[in-house]
């Protein structure tokens, strides 16, 4: 599905260059849930931008499904992003002046064919993240957790095969964080690839594989035998709240 081979990424031109990624190689198969960890500045976001087709590697090979990504032009990459990848950012990146529904519909504008049931699809996506009653709210009237769930609904609207999340819980309290992770768990069960970048072990332990970056290289790439289950944790949390 995702196949990276000997990826280098160097920022800057001329004398002042920094090589951020050095010979990264890994594959992610359909249905995997991967956490990418590493100290600040080791190149996690850089890697996500490459995987997410927002940037091109300086050297190396990248195959996404049948596409040799390195050879594609801007237009082809944009279409591929639109169809295959759903982004979730730490800062949510919602349009302030548009309500939740319009934010969720945004990727459809750039789809090859605008679906006739666009609004219904957006409503369903919002229902799926538990925001059916907040559809007409603008982001400034939503909590951080709710905003991030709108962003996830937006990422899901084109039914992408891959969800890329960079510190999705970084700006959230632990309860909201668990809610997000529970949604990811469900998306994972639907067969999507989930890639989550995080500093937080409590987040990474929900994945079934952890890749650790260090100084632009893969220091560790290990499976998790017993991943935590956010959905049950959330239920327990809710029960506890109900009791107290």
């Amino acid at each position, binding site marked *: 599905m995702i196949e990276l081979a000997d990826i280098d990424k160097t920022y800057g031109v001329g004398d002042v260059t920094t090589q951020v990624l050095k010979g990264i190689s890994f594959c992610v198969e359909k249905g995997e849930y991967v956490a990418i960890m590493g100290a600040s500045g080791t190149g996690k976001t850089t890697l996500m931008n490459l995987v997410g087709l927002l*940037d091109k590697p300086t050297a190396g090979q990248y195959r996404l499904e049948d596409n040799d990504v390195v050879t594609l032009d801007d*237009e082809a990459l*944009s279409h591929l992003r639109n169809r295959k990848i759903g982004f979730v950012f730490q800062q949510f*990146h919602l349009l302030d*002046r548009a309500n939740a529904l319009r934010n969720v519909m945004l990727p459809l*504008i*750039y789809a090859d064919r605008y679906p006739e049931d666009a609004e219904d699809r957006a409503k369903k996506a919002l229902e799926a993240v538990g925001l059916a009653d907040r559809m007409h709210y603008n982001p400034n009237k939503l909590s951080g957790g709710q905003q991030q769930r709108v962003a996830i609904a937006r990422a899901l609207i084109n039914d992408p095969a891959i969800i890329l999340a960079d510190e999705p819980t970084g700006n959230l309290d632990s309860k909201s964080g668990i809610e997000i992770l529970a949604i990811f768990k469900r998306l994972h069960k639907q067969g999507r690839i989930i890639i989550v970048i995080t500093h937080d072990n409590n987040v990474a332990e929900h994945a079934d594989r952890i890749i650790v970056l260090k100084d632009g290289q893969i220091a560790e790439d290990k499976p998790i035998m017993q991943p935590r289950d956010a959905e049950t944790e959330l239920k327990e949390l809710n029960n506890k709240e109900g009791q107290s």
Partner: protein
Amino acid sequence: MRILRLTQEGIRALLTHKLRAFFMMAGTLIGVAALTAIMTISMGTARKLKQQASKWPHDVIKVNAGGGKGYTMPQEAITTLLPADAEAIQDQIDNLVLVTSVAEKRGLSIKGNSRQTGTNVFSIQPNWHEVMNWYIDQGESVTDEDIATMARVCVLGATIREELFGEQDPIGEMVQIGNVHLRIKGILKPRGVGTSGRASDDRILVPLSTALRRLFNQEHLSYIRMTVRDPDKIEDTGEIRIERTAEEVRQLLHERHHITPPQEDDFSIVHSSIVIKDIRSISKTTTVLLIVLAGLSLIVGGIVLMNIMLVSVNERTKEIGLRRALGATRGDIFIQFLNESLAVTVVGIVIGGILGWIVSILLVKYRYLSIGNSWGLFALIVLFALLIGIFSGVQPARRAAKLQPVETLR
């Protein structure tokens, strides 16, 4: 359809920033409004002047008292144009058919049939009718004898007759101007609105001598009017006859009034080719100036539009990056931002065009102007404004499209 969705996005962005959109629009709006108003008014005025010029008989030369360029009215304060000048013109200038002298006063009070009103008094000679090609309807006109005896008689225009006497027969009745009583000898044929746009039937004709001595108590004339035989004939010198004759009249009057150019004339000469030249110069100088000003406002508006868009692009880098991440191509971003500028321009053109019309209609109401329209010129204005809109929109849109999503999303 994709382009429609992109345009819709652009319009949404404008609607959420209405004040910004207004400032982006202002230059186009004002420029188009000004150009439209100038266009309609100058077209209308030119058309009106042309109509007047075509009414001006092509064999007539008129010498007005008082200087000034071309198509002017006689000036009352000038007392130097005398009946002797008319006689000299008659005696010394060739190719003239008729020469007639007129002294006029406008807005005098007149009494008759125990009613009172205001009218314009024209003091004339018997050949006035022939020169003006305007004759008597009932009764008779001023005769040479009336002139010789300074007879207290007059001829009424249709309007003043109606006002004072209604359906009654006024011939033989008396009217009073100042403290002079005049017997009505005849009625002029109705003529409607004259070349100057004033009602021509609101007038009373009096023998020239009577008017000068008894009514106005003055020596001087308002104007001398003459007709030229074969006015279009080309003379041996290559000049057109009417122009040649006008020049001879000018020289004669220079001599008689002791004027040596560059000293200013105390009279002005009008004939049909001067009237036409005059129209050309009016439409040229004023409209060119106004068009340049309005064009500048469009260009300045374009620069403002471009700068606001550039600021807007800088403010919205995050949004642009996000849209790129969600699948917008460079072209999509370009089109969205260009269409923002275009939408503003188009709305500015529409409102500006309507505003221009309203302004010209209002101006016409309050001033002595007329409106006309040329779709060709209007299309040119629209095209010009659109081009400036596109030109101003392209640069910001290109900058927006060039932004790298990775740079903008941090």
